[in-house]
């Protein structure tokens, strides 16, 4: 379905002296989308956001807002607004004047400003706070003012730079839902930068997982979690168990991977490598632990036998660490569906069998050595 594109980055590169912060990055964000850039610090996500905002100049490449090339334009000429990390509210101005700042610069009539600021403070649930100074507000309230100050200008795109980073966990969860509600309500494209995978997954329509100035994988939260294409993505979004093997064959929708000890595992074929060394992965919550070690694979399930190294009862689930015959360690989250408490845990040293559906398996091309030698891994490029 073709949709109108709000932001397009065309082969953007940003170098700070010798360090490449953003490396030949291309990207399209669609209108009305909640788009996140997710990655560890130094991956170039903030630099990319700042280039869209106009605070950094791209070393090469082109930035489009809609159809217009804005690459060389200063921030005040771009139809984007930013919610800054730590908010950057003007300390000498009241909440009202902070929110009205953009409208005043654009010479909006005074009566109109009063109406709009009132409506905007209503939207962020801060009516009646007009006369306060930012220093008189809590962190969550400052965050809302920062959001109102940017949104009131009805920009084409709203840029958010880790806006919830300074809030405590409970408030952060609440603001995530709030942000999503506001975004749906105003229908403005949001580009959101975060290093918190859960935050990105909760709110985003699509996520670009970034690493060393490049997009590692781009997709909706489900794709990224269920079908990570690289070990980095698999590891950055949640916990994953990876096993090495070689592609041994396929039968249409499934490929068969042979582990080094000869065990055969099956995985969906979609786009994965069809020959050579691969890694095969499965999420901990997809694994089922069976105490009957020799139960054997049935119903077409993947099966691995191993020994319980450690078991910890967490309440909602039980976490097992299981070592396979080959020496791999797998994490398992077992739902406490049928157990009544810690007394029923499988003991350490017990032989067990792990089973899971082939559909829950993902395949990553290449071997672990390939990634360990990746020159990008140690690169730090993000500006402070």
């Amino acid at each position, binding site marked *: 379905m073709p949709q109108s594109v709000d932001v397009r980055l065309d082969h953007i590169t940003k170098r700070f002296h010798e360090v490449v912060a953003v490396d030949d990055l291309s990207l399209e964000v669609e209108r009305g989308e909640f788009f996140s850039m997710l990655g560890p610090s130094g991956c170039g996500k903030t630099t990319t956001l700042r280039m869209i*905002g*106009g*605070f950094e100049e791209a070393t090469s490449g082109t930035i489009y807002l809609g159809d217009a090339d804005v690459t060389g334009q*200063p*921030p*005040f000429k771009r139809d*984007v*607004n*930013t919610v*800054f*990390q*730590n908010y*950057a*509210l*003007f*300390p*000498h101005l009241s909440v009202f004047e902070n929110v009205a*700042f*953009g409208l005043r*610069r*654009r010479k909006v009539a005074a009566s109109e400003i009063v109406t709009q600021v009132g409506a905007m403070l209503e939207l962020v649930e801060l009516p009646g706070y007009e006369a306060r100074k930012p220093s008189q507000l809590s962190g969550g309230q400052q965050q809302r003012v920062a959001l109102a*100050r*940017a949104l009131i*200008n009805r920009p084409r795109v709203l840029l958010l730079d880790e806006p919830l980073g300074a809030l405590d966990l409970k408030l952060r969860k609440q603001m995530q839902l709030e942000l999503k509600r506001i975004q749906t309500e105003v229908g403005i494209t949001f580009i959101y930068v975060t290093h918190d995978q859960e935050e990105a997954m909760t709110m985003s329509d699509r996520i670009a997982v970034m690493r060393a100035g490049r997009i590692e994988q781009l997709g909706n939260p489900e794709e990224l979690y269920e079908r990570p294409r690289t070990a980095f993505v698999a590891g950055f979004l949640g916990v994953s168990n990876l096993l090495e093997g070689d592609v041994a064959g396929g039968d249409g929708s499934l490929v068969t991977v042979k582990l080094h000890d000869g065990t055969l595992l099956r995985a969906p074929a979609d786009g994965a490598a069809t020959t050579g060394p691969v890694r095969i992965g499965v999420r901990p919550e997809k694994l089922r632990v069976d105490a009957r070690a020799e139960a054997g694979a049935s119903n077409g399930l993947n099966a691995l036998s191993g020994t319980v190294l450690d078991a910890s009862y967490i309440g909602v689930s039980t976490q097992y660490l299981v070592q396979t015959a080959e020496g791999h360690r797998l994490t398992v989250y077992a739902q406490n569906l049928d157990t009544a408490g810690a007394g029923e845990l499988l003991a350490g040293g017990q032989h067990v069998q792990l089973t899971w559906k082939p559909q829950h398996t993902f395949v990553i091309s290449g071997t672990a050595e390939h990634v360990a030698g990746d020159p990008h891994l140690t690169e730090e490029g993000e500006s402070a």
Partner: protein
Amino acid sequence: MRSLSRGITPLLLLLPGTAWLIVFFVVPMAFMLLISLQQGTFDTGYQLTWNFGIYPEVIGQYWELYWRSAIFALAATGLTLAIGYPVAYTIAFRGGRLKNALLLIVVLPFFVSFVIRTLNWRMILSDNGIVFGFLKDLGIVAPDFHFLATPASVIFGLTYNFLPFMILPLYVAIEKIDRRLIEAATDLYASRLQAFWRVTFVLSLPGVVAGSLLTFIPAVGDFITAEVIGAGNPQVFMIGNIIQRKFLDSLDYPAAAALGFVLVAVVMVLVTVYTRLVGSDQLAG
């Protein structure tokens, strides 16, 4: 017991400061007031006669010098601000690793005595010195031009001497400003100039106020500059020159004390008006 000690503690903490003010400000001012009300001569001795008439007398005689001192000091303050702000801004925002070195350069002149530096300027700016002698040789300046002993030369000297007192507080105030605020302003459709006036400058006002006071107050009472660069020309004398002469040359202590007392009063009134205008909370930041 605890609430009592809690009530007393702040007062105890105020004690050293209060004692300092009393011993080094209130008591000397009282002495100065008493001296100003005495009559007599140095040789015959002075008696306290509560001669309040000295005040209208000295003000009537020297009001022009108070006026001139205020104008000179004000001009110098304006110039130090105009020169100092770009310097402080550049060091704070563009200094990078050189910040401390640049600040050292700003205060470096203090390593040489105030009087010596002023004397040096007198030589540099003399009629046939390296500046004007050179310009005269080139024919850019008329042969009979002279700069020393003019009002402009005194204002120049004051500006030079008090510039660091302006730059340092400005630097501290500007350096504290979060640059994201300036980015936020440009993000919200302010041009760079608007962002400067509405954010950077407003937030640096505590530095502007502190720097102006640190420049204006000593400058208004200065006498070295007018004596040296003013070359002793009475036409460019400031009130400090008169006070100094009364005290040290004519030994007319009562008149000198009265002039000094009026100067303190004038400065206090001006400073009060100024801080009220700008908002005294700017001083506290």
